[in-house]
Each structure stands twice: as structure tokens, then as C-alpha cells.
């Protein structure tokens, strides 16, 4: 990742901002956060699920329409931090038209990316999701990035082999 806080987009960030932060909040992530793709609901989804992160209140409702073994349409509604909302927006871009097997593989790959598998940063199948590689340096935020994929896993069944279980947050504190 970048030595200085210069992001791939080319904007020079104040040097007081640690590079890990500039990597975490990349412009493409802020773009999906502010201009979400495929946000809304489907008229006649074949599958819908709502999941939340009770620790922080982030919530995502994912709806998909499956025809045969392909995901025809996908939409989500959600509220929460930039990481959870950008990740689900990016995810929906990769899901449209994907076979169920491809969608499961995507989920497994993304989880590995978040756990620091660097080679996946060059995997084009992940699309914009690659911008979330910086989350691996912030373990407490991994569950944010996975919320949308947790919904997907819930909808389309068994996770592919090698996929780690999503982290669950600790209980409430005052």
C-alpha cells in the first residue's frame, strides 16, 4: 500500500493523516458510501433477508431475484458506517448476472481479502471490493465489511470451503 497518504485517485492527502487511514477510506469507498449502487428494493424478490450488527446498529436488507442458477436482480436497503454500506454497494455490482456458485466464491474470496491475502488485491473478479483490502489492518472493522456478504451467505446457502466464519461482536457495554 502507499508509503505516503497519496491515494490511487491522485489527491494528495494531508501528511498528518496516517496512510493506513487513507487506505481504509479510499475515494472509491466514499463514492459508494455517498452514491450507493443498487440501493432500493425489488418488487418480487425470490430471497430477502435483514441482518444487523447489534453492537453498532448497522443494518442491511438484501433482496435478490434468482432465476435458474443465476442472480437476475439485486437490491439492498441499509444504514451504517461507510465500510458496511460501501461494501454492500460494491457487492451488488458483482452479483448481477452471477451464477450462485460464482456468488459463493466471491463471498469466500472477499473474506480472504479482508483477512490480509494480498494476492487477491489483483483479482479482477472482486471489482471495487478490492478497495476494501485496507480493512485487514483494522480487525474490529472486518465485521462491518462483511455484513452485506453475511446476508448473501444467509440467502444462497452453504459457504464455500475455506471461508472463515464471520466475526461476531462482543455484547453491549454501557
Amino acid at each position, binding site marked *: 500500500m502507499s508509503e505516503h497518504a497519496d491515494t490511487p485517485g491522485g489527491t494528495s492527502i494531508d501528511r498528518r493523516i496516517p496512510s493506513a487511514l487513507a487506505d481504509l477510506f479510499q475515494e472509491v469507498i466514499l463514492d459508494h458510501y455517498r452514491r450507493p449502487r443498487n440501493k432500493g428494493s425489488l418488487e418480487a424478490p425470490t430471497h430477502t433477508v435483514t441482518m444487523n450488527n447489534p*453492537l453498532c446498529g448497522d443494518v442491511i436488507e438484501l433482496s435478490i431475484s434468482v432465476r435458474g442458477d443465476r442472480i437476475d436482480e439485486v437490491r439492498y436497503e441499509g444504514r451504517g458506517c*461507510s465500510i458496511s454500506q460501501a461494501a454492500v454497494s460494491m457487492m451488488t455490482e458483482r452479483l448481477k448476472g452471477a451464477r450462485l456458485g460464482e456468488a459463493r466464491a466471491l463471498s469466500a474470496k472477499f473474506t480472504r481479502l479482508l483477512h490480509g491475502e494480498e494476492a487477491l488485491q489483483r483479482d479482477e473478479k472482486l471489482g471495487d471490493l478490492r478497495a476494501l483490502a485496507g480493512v485487514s489492518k483494522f480487525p474490529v472493522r472486518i465485521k462491518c465489511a462483511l455484513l452485506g456478504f453475511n446476508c448473501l451467505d444467509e440467502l444462497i446457502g452453504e459457504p464455500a470451503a475455506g471461508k472463515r466464519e464471520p466475526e461476531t461482536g462482543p455484547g453491549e*457495554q454501557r
Partner: protein
Amino acid sequence: MVAPPYDIEAVRRDFPILEQKVNGQPLVYLDSAASSQRPRAVIDAIRRHYETSHANVHRGAHELSVRATEAYEDARTCVAAHIGAEDTAEIVFVRGTTEAINLVAGSLGKARIGSGDEILLTKMEHHSNIVPWQLLAERTGATLRFVDVSPEGRLVLDDYGRMLSERTRLVGVTHVSNSLGVINPVREIAALAHEAGALCLVDGAQAAPHLALDMGALGCDFYAFSGHKMCGPTGIGVLWARRAILEEMPPYQGGGEMIASVTLDGSTWAEVPHKFEAGTPNIAGAVGLGAAIRYLDGIGLDAIRRYETELTGYALERLGEIEGLRIYGPTDGRVGVLSFTYLDVHAHDLATILDQRGIAIRAGHHCNQPLMEHLGIDATARASLYLYNTPQEVDALCEALHLAGELFCRRV
């Protein structure tokens, strides 16, 4: 700011944890409303207890047990004096505020609250002063009602006049809001409750660390607080209640320590407060809490309050200068619990950014989901101040917020 009423640098040196760097930056700890830090006096008192005096209490016939019992009961006396309790028997040691409220809901609920009765709470209560009553309502058929919160973040006191009735059995209210920082007029509320024939329970978790307390003057019937928010250990807290009420209430948990005698046909209960302390208590925790109270009293709650009021005023002023930042809660009659939102940067993203600058804040709903819903937000960032925080730390917070703003307002 005017000169502080005590030596802040000396106080900071009393807290070993503050002398460290986090993510390469000096630690700026602004999360004391979640849990405060401990001075060396507390850490040493706990260590000394384990090194020299530990045994079980109230039952041994040997020297160490005598010492441990004396230390445990001495802590009770210390708490009683600190909060102006008339009688040390009115101090029940519990795990924390949550257990104290569950104790009252569990015990009093059984004895006094039934179908058709009402419990009057407020919309700014912490989950720990809502959920125990919801469980009680499920068991008994009682109804919960909630006093409203004004846009400024204060209780709508007129609601008490409207909602109190002969059906109201208990009024529960937080002394200080853990999200808004507002100090509620609990004395007035307790008087209104009593006029209606109801008991009054006050959640003091966020008040006890900051305010000098006098149970006689406050006029409530139950007061609950936690040790770990006032420089003491985790796992120890206090339920204060009037002796006559405690004597009337049935036990909360059964076990050793809380009985007078046990036969296979039945048992009789120990005198209060022991009737409510089943099992081996958190002895070292009580010793640590006693040390924490002595430490705070050494500085003086009034001096701490004066300093924190100054510091909170400074923080409100500095944060108020930041464009796009919105603070929740009133500007006066409050403590230094500062909940805010900033631009469209989500509270969790703010917390991550500030953490990279060594600044610890809390993000989320703060166990205040009904209040957040009422305010129409999902989450806030919360910076909370305590006796060891400084204006320089407030400056560091503001500077880091500017960085967060720059980071999120890049050309995208």
C-alpha cells in the same frame, strides 16, 4: 480556562495507564463514561488486599478472615459516608448498576407490582433501566410508560403530572444521561413520585463519578451506581435503598451468606444488607471501590465538578466552532458527556480515525436505542471527560476531527 482547583498534572501521574502511546500518539482517553481509569491508589489497595489480607468474609474464625471482613465492611462504611447514607446497612454491594436495578425489579416486583400497575420511566434511560422493567412487566402484566425528552435534551417534566397516577408503583429515572450528559432534577422527580404514592429509583451510573451525593437530600428510595465508572474496579457496584424498604423486600438471590438458618423445610434470612448478598461477594472489588472513593474524596467531588464544568464549557465552545458538527444535549446543567455527529461521517468511522490519532471515544447507540430513535439518528460519537482530562486533549480531539473532515471531503 481559569486555574484548575487541583493539580491536573499530579492527578494524571496518579493514573499509570495514561502514560502511554497508542498508535504512535500520546493516549487521549475520552471514554470514561464507558469505563474510567484507575489511580495507583486503587490498584495498590487491591494488590495489598490479595498480598496480605485475603480470605472469605463473615464466616472464618481465623485472622485473615477477620481482616478481610473488616476491609469489606470498612468499604461499606466508606460508601455510606460518601453518599450520605444514614445507615451502613443501606449499602448493598452488587456487580454494578445493572445488577442493582435487576435486584430491585426482581425483588420489589415480586412483592409489590402486579397486573394493571404502572412503572414510569423516561425515553432517555439506558437499556439497563428499561429491560429489567420489561422483564418484570412480562411476568406481572404491569405497564411501562415513558416520560418524553425535549428537543434540547431535557426531560419533559410536565409529563410527570400527566402520567403519574394511583396506578404508578415506581418511577425510574437516570440522574445523568449517558448520551446527552444532562443532569436531571431527580430531587423534584422523587418528590412527585412520592406525592403519587410511588417509589423512586435513580440510576446514578453517570452521576456518581462526577457529583457529590447526599441520599438524605436527594429523597429517592433507591440509588444505583457502578464502581468502574468512578475510578474503582469492574464487577463492583452499589444499591443504596432505605433500610425500611430493604427489610420489607424479599431476597433477590438465594445461597450462602444471605441466610439466618436453613432447614430442609425452609430458611430464614439474614439481616440487611446481607439478605441481598448471596454467595461470596467481590471482596477485593469492594476494597478497591473504597480506595477509589477515598481517592476522589481526597481531591473533592466539588473541586472535580468545578474543573469538569470549566473543561466541558471549553469543549462545547471548541467543538461548536467546527462546521458540520452537531452536539446533542443541553449546553448547561450537564456533565462532560459529549455526544455528537459530524458531517456525514458515521460515528464508527470517526472512532476509527480518532483511534489512529491515539484518541479513544465511543461510537454507537450507547445502550440508548430508544433515545436514538427519538432523536432520529442511528448512532453518535461520544467523547466523555473526567477529572484527568485536559484542555490540550480537547484540542487534540478537535484537530483530529478536522482531519476526519478532510479525509471524508476529498474530491470524490
